[in-house]
């Protein structure tokens, strides 16, 4: 229990030292008071600056394919929290919780947490 607490505190301290990379305004891009969950397959993981993006593919009620762009932290930020460029691969089935974009046409989310049921891998955190 103590070791978990130590790891959490250490992670928090580490995040405080990470640079922010915001090139746009989150409050203007996302509905920060709302959350939605999508279950989808990974198309591509863009591990990059200024922010990483995860492209996911899901089906709507009519079976039509939808491509989602899930915004995540910058490469350096994710790297410091254990997410590497090959952590997620095309075809991985994942469940993502995020804040929906203000423009529904974009099919966009801001990452809150992600789980990969096949092996139990998960990530949860915040980023600027």
């Amino acid at each position, binding site marked *: 229990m103590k070791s978990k607490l130590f790891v959490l505190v250490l992670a928090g301290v580490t995040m405080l030292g990470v640079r922010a990379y915001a*090139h746009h*305004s989150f*409050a*203007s*891009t996302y509905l920060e008071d709302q959350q939605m969950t999508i279950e989808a397959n990974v198309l591509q993981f863009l591990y990059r600056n*200024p922010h990483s993006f995860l492209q996911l593919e899901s089906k709507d009620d009519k079976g039509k394919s939808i491509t989602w*762009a899930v*915004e995540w932290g910058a490469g350096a930020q994710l790297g410091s929290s254990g997410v590497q460029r090959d952590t997620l691969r095309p075809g991985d089935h994942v469940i993502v919780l995020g804040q929906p974009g203000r423009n529904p046409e974009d099919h966009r989310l801001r990452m809150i947490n992600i789980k990969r049921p096949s092996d139990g891998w998960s990530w949860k955190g915040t980023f600027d």
Partner: protein
Amino acid sequence: MTRNTISAGVVLLLSMSLPALAEIDLSGSWASINHEDSLERGGGPYPADWAGIPFNEYGRAKALSFSQSIISMPERICWFQTQWHIAAGPFSLRMWAVPDPLTGKVQAWMIGAWETRAPMIIWMDGRPRPSKNAPHDQTGFTTGVWNGNELIATTTHLKTGYIRRNGAPSSDQATITTHFLRHGNMLTLALLMDDPVYLTEPYVLTRSYNLSTNPVAIGGPPCIVGDEGVESGRVPHYLPGKNPYTDEMTKLFGIPEEAAMGGAQTMYPEFRDKIKDKFKLPAKCKLNCGN
């Protein structure tokens, strides 16, 4: 005659190696203090929150047409912000002096780039400003002069940009005046935006930095274009009268729309008296409440 010539030469040499009186060293890594205006520096402001910006009607109309998704167009993702992003962005600064190879005097002060802002070169050698018809870019052209121990930099020849990350615009006719004020290990920048196209008065922002031994990168990491949800060819925008967020600040924080829409009067303290009967304190603050 010979003695006089030698004396004059010695004086000249000495004067060349000494900085002008009251100049101070600005070099180093300056860590941004982002709890100051934390929403502005960090996550970014809300849509249609332009309180305190001295818009004219053209500036407001341009801002109301802005959809945040436009920044995710493939051709705009890595588009540099103007030098105003020093004030409106979240980053720390790295500053250093570039010597003139012949005289050893400071020819220019440099502020390192970020991934979304070009480096600022502050020319200190008195070179003339380019013609007003010279090409403009996001970097602009900057010259500096010392006023006592304060460096004053003037930037012109900019392209259009944003003065707030929610789409408040600046034009290619704008001039940015940046005052660098050092107090020991603290640096304060006071930036003034004069824009005859979109503003009726100068817009002023200050921000402060702490000197840090942790080196700030001299250039940001490369920006890489990727799919951010806006397909090539679509230009997100709002037509006149169609911006859905004009009442966002009223709904979230009870701030009257006439304040959120900006204008010079919203910069001044007496405006609070004017709208005090229209401000309704929300029963509960839900987001970004300062805690």
